[in-house]
């Protein structure tokens, strides 16, 4: 196990407010040189003590495994010697079912894989489908999709933050995070009518434009949300318990993280500045001004820092997107893929034919294949689609970021304590719906 020694300024216990109204902090543990304490990595395995190893079964029905993940752990005392993950308890065969569905009919399945990021998946999937059809969406739809993706990134990170806090033993930030998430779901509900299973996109556009007054509601959210991030950070970032429970755990070096195929905050916490939005941009992300937070130690604490900073950066992107949201149609003017208005379909012969052909046969892309990756909250989310010219894909493949991230868990937990397995597992931000598909 790599030992990591870092110095983090730790603040504990708030006694009151100072003259400026800011809380006064009294560090409980003070080093001789001043107000910092050094948090060392937990002691490594005790050298060669005699004793039998124990087998512990964690999950699949365990609240801290975030769904139905099952870890079989071999323990030496309290130290994990070997970890064997078992997955597949939630396998539904999404990819198989997709081969029997038209392109627009697959959208609801994308809601249900990574269900914390459903509208983001809708957008990712539809970018792939549109590439296959050779369609570029309208300027308004482009910006709306950016808004959708960033909103769902914030919502997903908030769930991660709340549940990780619970796993490590802090209850309050959980409530704050879920309160803000509720605001996002209120926004989504007003937009597409559903909170969790949004199904918001269609090939060539969106299911619905945002209703009147929606942008003002989003502006209110953007204005108020950073205060919550500040509060959470004040609660956790320099909290001695939080730092002690997270620092030095599950550390991956940059080379290891790349080699294991980690992506998203997991990879960036290890110091690799790979963000699909910057390196292989889509939806005009290159024109937005935002930073990619990059950690250096690749431990649970850095993953926390990276995700919290991503919350801020996503808010920045939302702000810019809202400012540039153009007027105009959300759907492309292409009746190969977009249904004509109902009034026309019942009065004009040509529109009726388009309507009939789309509903009965479904839009058909030309023969071809594409792999379109986007930056989901968990990492690189790719959709690989192969078309043989019929209305249903030959192959619809999801590249699940948390599946690949989770595959590194034996590497991350071996040598740590059993209670740290919970923290490390939480830091991966897994969604079993996406892993098992």
């Amino acid at each position: 196990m790599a030992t990591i020694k870092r110095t983090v300024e730790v603040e504990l216990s708030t006694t009151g407010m100072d003259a400026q109204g800011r809380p006064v902090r009294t560090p409980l543990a003070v080093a001789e040189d001043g107000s910092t304490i050094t948090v060392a990595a937990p002691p490594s395995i005790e050298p060669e003590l005699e004793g039998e190893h124990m087998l512990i079964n964690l999950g699949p029905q365990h609240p801290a495994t975030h769904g139905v993940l099952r870890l079989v752990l071999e323990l030496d005392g309290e130290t994990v010697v070997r970890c064997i993950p078992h997955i597949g308890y939630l396998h539904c065969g999404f990819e198989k079912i997709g081969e029997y569905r038209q392109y627009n009919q697959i959208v609801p399945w994308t809601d249900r894989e990574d269900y914390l990021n459903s509208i983001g998946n809708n957008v990712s999937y539809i970018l792939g489908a549109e590439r296959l059809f050779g369609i570029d969406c309208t300027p308004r739809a482009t910006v709306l999709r950016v808004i959708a993706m960033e909103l769902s990134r914030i919502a997903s990170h908030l769930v991660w933050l709340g549940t990780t806090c619970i796993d490590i033993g802090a209850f309050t930030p959980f409530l704050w995070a879920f309160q803000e998430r509720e605001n996002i779901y209120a926004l989504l509900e007003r937009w597409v009518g559903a909170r969790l299973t949004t199904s918001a996109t269609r090939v060539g556009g969106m299911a619905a434009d945002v209703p009147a007054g929606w942008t003002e509601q989003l502006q209110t959210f953007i204005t108020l949300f950073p205060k919550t991030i500040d509060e959470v950070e004040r609660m956790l970032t320099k909290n001695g318990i939080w730092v002690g429970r997270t620092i030095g755990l599950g550390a991956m070096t940059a080379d290891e993280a790349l080699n294991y195929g980690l992506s998203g905050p997991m990879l960036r916490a290890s110091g690799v500045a790979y963000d699909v939005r910057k390196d292989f941009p889509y939806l005009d992300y290159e024109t937005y001004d935002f930073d990619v937070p990059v950690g250096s130690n690749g431990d649970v604490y850095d993953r926390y820092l990276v995700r919290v900073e991503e919350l801020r950066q996503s808010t920045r992107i939302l702000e810019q997107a809202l400012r540039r949201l153009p007027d105009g149609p959300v759907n492309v003017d292409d009746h190969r893929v977009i249904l004509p208005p109902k009034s026309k379909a019942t009065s004009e012969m040509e529109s009726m034919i388009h309507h009939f052909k789309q509903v009965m046969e479904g839009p058909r892309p030309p023969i071809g294949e594409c792999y379109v990756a986007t930056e989901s909250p968990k990492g690189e989310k790719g959709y690989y689609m192969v078309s043989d010219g019929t209305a249903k894909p030959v192959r619809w493949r999801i590249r699940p970021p948390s599946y690949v991230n989770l595959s590194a868990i034996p590497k991350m937990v071996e040598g740590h304590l059993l209670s740290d397995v919970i923290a490390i597992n939480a830091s991966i931000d897994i969604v079993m719906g996406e892993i098992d598909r």
Partner: protein
Amino acid sequence: MTTPFTPVVGGSALPSDAPAAATQREVPHRGGPANPSAEALRAKFGGAVLRVDVVWGETTVIVERTRVQEIVRWLHDDASQRYDYLSDLTAVEFRDAEHPIEVVWHLRSIAYRRFLRLKVQLQRGQPYEVPSVWPVFKGADWLERECYDMFGIRFAGHPDLRRILMWEQYKEGFPLRKDFPLRGRFSRAEQLRQALAANPEARYSMEELSIADAFEDLPQEMRNRLRSGEKTGE
């Protein structure tokens, strides 16, 4: 609150005057500029590169089955390529029964901001086996296991090739193959019978039961059954 982060933009191996990455628009269906790595592969491996396609702006290199690992290793190690990230690994079976099954690797060079698709075509009647890229990319571990689980393609050299999403005693075959019906191969009655006959308590693989005295902790009756050669269930 101050942030400990500084803005970082990827693509560090590119010259400083390289154009910034931009959203692709109006990508042609066929043709367009190919990834320069395809030419480099041709120069280096010659006959092992069977075909280069550019579809929707993405370069596909179809290579010979037996030389995949060698090619991937070269792409990973060579300083002018640096494909250090395995995005995805999967397989495709076509509805056309004559069409070969394809195994697909999606590689990224983060340093040079390149994306490359490697493909191997497995002709019908050939053994469905390709070399594992696990020695190059540790991330291929679960991806290859999933590919084996879903398509029955064996990866020679994979350290632990067993089912991952389906349980180890799954008998119906390989679900993503086109000859596998959507409802499953067995009848509902047979599926139900197997589910009820499964032994949910014997949930450990023999490898796990080799840990310490875990085997001794099982009920006597189950130990007898396992000793007599019965396989454990997931």
